[in-house]
């Protein structure tokens, strides 16, 4: 079975190779994302980011003179369905596989893409995804193993907090963040005063906040999605909690400010990837996105966009459309915004597929995100 498969793959590569020279047939990409079910917002942002990037690239002549073409498949936010759809996508031999966004769905599909030898650029943020030695998997954002240490360091060094309450959303995103930061807190001997799991879509945070109040921590770490962030910020204000509130992209984004109003003031956090970043290229991206889709994207929209520009830059570096060589070419590759504006900020991909990039520490001051500190790339 396998030799036959390899041979046919080889044949296909040869054939498509031949096709480039002649006609410049489109480069086929396959996206499998959470377009319905619990992750629909994540997946739809990701998909829109992809479509926007492809539209822009194609209007400027494509990659190496060839247009990009993508198929979207819905994983229903269910790992079993994700596996079926990724198999379907791989059977069609795409150039690169995009998605999924949920870490569980990434875990179940990554071995399949690796077996087929096709690079997979995904949105999952769980720490363990890039620790399994898979040579075909790439992140589009910081994994929690690289963002949480920065947050913990800030809480320890700047806020000098000795006890922290953690509020997290009980899904793979929230749990991953909570576990990563707890590990960091242990290193600094910071006590976890309250450890509160919340539900996705939760509307009433009275009970959670009253628990925080009872625990009287020096700071509160909030790691829930944007809508829930806004609700808990309001409740924190109402119950008169004044200690620093620290989070990630999902606590200090523009969307949270819009929804929470005054209550968002004073919230601070580490931002790896945000449409509010003080970078001209990112602002331009945001405007384009809003113009096309009529809403401000979250970081998943940015991730989808970046995935496509990663493909563009890597392919242009190779000088050819070579599915088998793609992963190797992207490992250790630094894409600079000067050369490829679409990447928005300089980014380096290491041998595990992890991304390294600038980050920011921001605070909400009078309804505006203010950058307090720029965190440089690690490997400069």
């Amino acid at each position, binding site marked *: 079975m396998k030799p036959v498969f390899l041979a046919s793959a080889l044949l296909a590569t040869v054939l498509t190779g031949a096709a480039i020279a002649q006609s410049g047939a489109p480069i086929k990409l396959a996206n499998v994302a959470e377009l319905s079910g619990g992750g629909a917002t994540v997946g739809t942002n990701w998909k829109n980011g992809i479509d926007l990037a492809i539209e822009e690239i194609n209007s400027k002549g494509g990659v190496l003179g060839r247009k990009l073409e993508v198929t979207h498949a819905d994983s229903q936010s269910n*790992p*079993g369905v994700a596996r079926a759809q990724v198999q379907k996508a791989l059977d069609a031999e795409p150039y690169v596989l995009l998605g999924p966004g949920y870490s*569980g769905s990434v875990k*179940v599909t990554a071995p399949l893409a690796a077996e087929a030898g096709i690079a997979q650029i995904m949105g999952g943020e*769980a720490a363990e995804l890039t620790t399994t030695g898979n040579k075909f998997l790439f992140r589009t954002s910081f994994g929690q193993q690289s963002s949480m240490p920065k947050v913990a360091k800030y809480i320890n060094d700047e806020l000098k907090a000795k006890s922290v309450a953690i509020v997290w959303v009980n*899904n793979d995103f929230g749990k991953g963040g909570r576990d990563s930061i707890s590990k960091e807190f242990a290193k600094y001997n910071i006590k976890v005063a309250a450890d509160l799991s919340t539900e996705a879509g939760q509307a009433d945070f009275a009970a959670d906040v009253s628990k925080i109040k009872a625990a009287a921590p020096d700071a509160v770490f909030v790691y829930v999605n944007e809508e829930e962030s806004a609700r808990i910020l309001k409740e924190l204000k109402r119950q008169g909690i004044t200690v620093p509130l620290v989070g990630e992209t999902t606590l200090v984004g523009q969307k949270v400010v819009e929804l929470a109003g005054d209550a968002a003031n004073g919230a601070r956090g580490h931002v790896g990837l945000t449409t509010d970043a003080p970078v001209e290229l990112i602002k331009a991206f945001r405007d384009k996105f809003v113009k096309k889709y009529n809403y401000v994207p979250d970081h998943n929209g940015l991730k989808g966009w970046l995935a496509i520009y990663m493909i563009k830059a890597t392919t242009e570096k190779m000088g050819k459309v070579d599915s088998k060589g793609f992963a190797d070419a992207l490992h250790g590759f630094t894409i600079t915004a000067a050369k490829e504006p679409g990447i928005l900020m300089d980014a380096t991909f290491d041998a595990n597929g992890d991304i390294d990039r600038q980050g920011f520490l921001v605070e909400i001051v009078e309804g505006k995100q203010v950058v307090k500190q720029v965190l440089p790339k690690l490997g400069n």
Partner: protein
Amino acid sequence: MTAAKTLKIGFGIVVIAALIIVPMNFNRYGLFILSQWAVMTIAAMGLNLTLGYAGQVSLAQGAFVGIGAYTAAIMTSSGLPLIGALGVAIVLCFAIGWILGYPALRVQHHYLAFVTLAFSTLAFLVFRNEDWLTKGIYGISNIPRPEIFGYPTRRPLPFYYVCLGSLGIVSLAVWWLIRSPWGRAFIALRENPVRALSLGIDTRRYTLMAFAIGSALGGVAGTLYAPLTQYVDPVPFHLSLSLDLLMMVIVGGSGFFFGPFLGAMIAVLLPEWLRFTQGYYLMLYAIAVILLLIYSPTGILGILDRYISERRTKAASALRAVAKAKLETAP
């Protein structure tokens, strides 16, 4: 009559042969979907036993699939054979079913639906929160596929045959069960519980038995689900799976032996066929199910059943007409 029977048997053989031969040159995606169909059919057959034959609504079949899946994932990941996990899952699901059903059926008939509704959410919370056992929301990955008689089933095609074979065995067992005195007692319960009681059938015990066996079949489906996706997390076993399975049974035709086969086909394959419509596929799927149920509330096999009985009445009335004509023309 015998001709019809031969026709039926012949049709059955053709279908079985097709299920074995046709997928041989399917791609991995096709085999995965077909395997999913087989697994869901087993779970739906269990529910059909509870619902279609004993007349009880269970909203926890998805939770039992989850219990089976976690049993298989935990046991096979620590090196135990899948067949052992299968045994444990069956016993576990049967026992939980019995414990759940006992108090519910003590009071009133439809309370089983309510109790199982609560149970299925509780089971989801346990899957998600008890990290030490289930690895919580991270799930259990790299679940191995079994070796059957020393033959590895890691590739899609052999594993499809494992699913198909299991479906075959379960079908035979259920077929035997509903023809046994037990099965007849189940049907008597559904048709007329009061009469069944007066005939000396211990209705509560039989209803409970039907529910427990049905739940155990959910566990069987789960033990296949785990090695099929090779990853188990709590999300797929949410209440919505139980509702989906209920939909499969009703849409296929509740109380018909082949109902779950067709119902699972609709639920698993129809959305796949509709995927070409992109964002609209689930909407179209929902509309299709609603229209089907409006057209035939007894499901797909209900249409067939109606058609056959209509033909019989027509044939009978034709015969009557002929007889009448003969009588009238007779001097």
